């Protein structure tokens, strides 16, 4: 609704009024977000280009199939859905804070900003768990010298290539050194008593190989090394946005509590913060799509 009648023949670009009828700060926030969208877009498109250029890529349902406290249960998509819903919900509380700001309701803004901050922290906690899980994971993969070794998922190692055939695995086991065989046999004994390692080390190579093959070891080729770099780079860049968004939200929460926006007569800062926070949610829609769904 117009608060002031606009005379006909108004020269919009002569200064003294906003051609877009939006404050300078909000226009600039939009343009910053547009440029940030291109940054994220370039990262994701680069990832897509590399993924399209190789014959085999890590299957997200195998890489991201675990859940905190669920042990080795195979739960594809479960944890990332939790993260997605946390972010959607914190987006809703943010837009509700903006809504309360339009109505100059300080208590309402405080309440919803607080919930938004909690959502952001919960998301960061989930991401920290997921990163730790990948970086400390133990997956048996074929090394370039033909032996088997235990690899985590890092920017330098990707154990998520194609599965080894049974024959390939047997010949790889023959050339795998003793310590690696012990370590591999040890990974198949999750939850076993602590003395197991010494008992395994005393076994001969052939006994270890027999034990590993009867336990049904799952071993893979190494995948393209770019996987870890793209995953940690892009989710890290997004996580950094979430982190900075949480910091900005905390500052706005304090300013709201101190009554700065009541003195100013409007809650437009909450709107601008909200734009940034929704953008973080928007980027997650595409990170979720590119890394976890397809």
């Amino acid at each position, binding site marked *: 609704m117009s608060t002031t009648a606009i005379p006909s023949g108004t020269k919009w670009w002569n200064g003294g009024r906003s051609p877009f009828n*939006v404050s300078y700060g909000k226009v600039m926030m939009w343009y910053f977000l547009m440029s940030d969208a291109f940054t994220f877009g370039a990262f994701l498109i680069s990832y897509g280009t590399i993924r*399209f250029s190789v014959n085999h890529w890590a299957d997200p349902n195998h890489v991201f199939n675990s859940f905190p406290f669920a042990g080795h249960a195979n739960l594809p*998509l479960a944890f990332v859905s939790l993260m997605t819903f946390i972010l959607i919900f914190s987006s809703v509380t943010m837009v509700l804070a903006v809504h309360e700001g339009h109505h100059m309701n300080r208590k309402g803004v405080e309440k919803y900003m607080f919930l938004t901050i909690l959502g952001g922290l919960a998301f960061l906690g989930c991401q920290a768990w997921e990163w730790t899980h990948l970086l400390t994971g133990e997956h048996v993969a074929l090394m370039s010298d033909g032996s088997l070794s235990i690899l985590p998922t890092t920017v330098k190692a990707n154990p998520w290539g194609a599965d080894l055939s049974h024959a390939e695995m047997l010949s790889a086991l023959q050339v795998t050194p003793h310590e690696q065989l012990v370590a591999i046999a040890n990974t198949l004994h999750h939850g076993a008593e602590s003395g197991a390692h010494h008992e395994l080390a005393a076994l001969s190579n052939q006994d270890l190989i027999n034990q590993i093959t009867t336990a049904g070891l799952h071993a893979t080729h190494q995948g393209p090394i770019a996987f870890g770099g793209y995953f940690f780079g892009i989710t890290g860049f997004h996580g950094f946005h979430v982190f900075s968004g949480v910091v900005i939200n905390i500052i706005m929460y304090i300013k709201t509590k101190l009554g700065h926006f009541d003195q100013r007569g409007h809650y437009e800062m909450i709107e601008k913060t909200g734009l940034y926070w929704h953008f973080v949610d928007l980027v997650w829609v595409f990170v979720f799509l590119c890394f976890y769904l397809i």
Partner: protein
Amino acid sequence: MSNQHQVISPEISFAPEHSGDTKRIWRTFWLLSVVTIIELAIGLAIYNIHKGANPNETLVLAFKGMVCILSLAKAYYIVSIFMHLGDEIRNMIMTIVVPLSLFIWFVIAFLWDGNAWRNLRNTDAGSKPNTEQVQHAPVKEGTSH
């Protein structure tokens, strides 16, 4: 219906009307949640297809295209409703949306390029024959000599 009484700047002569209730916000929340659940269902369908003996690659591709479209729908609702871009005046909307259309070229050109690289990799002319996944590389005769 509360009228707009906040004066942000004297340069602004117009402010979108903000309705008193939050119905639209919650409707958008449910919409985003339902779309996400559909996406997850499709993701699980893809997972189950891949588990099978002979995965139907065309069906997988169709499902992947579907989740891409659903993600774009989610992006539209977040930007339009949550970020209130739909409430701004048309010129403002256009200065954001028109530059972003560059992405149409950006996505097509670069994925096409990636695909061309894979095709090259799988020929004799490929600069780096992929020895790691021999069983996955389609066998091609060197017909281009």
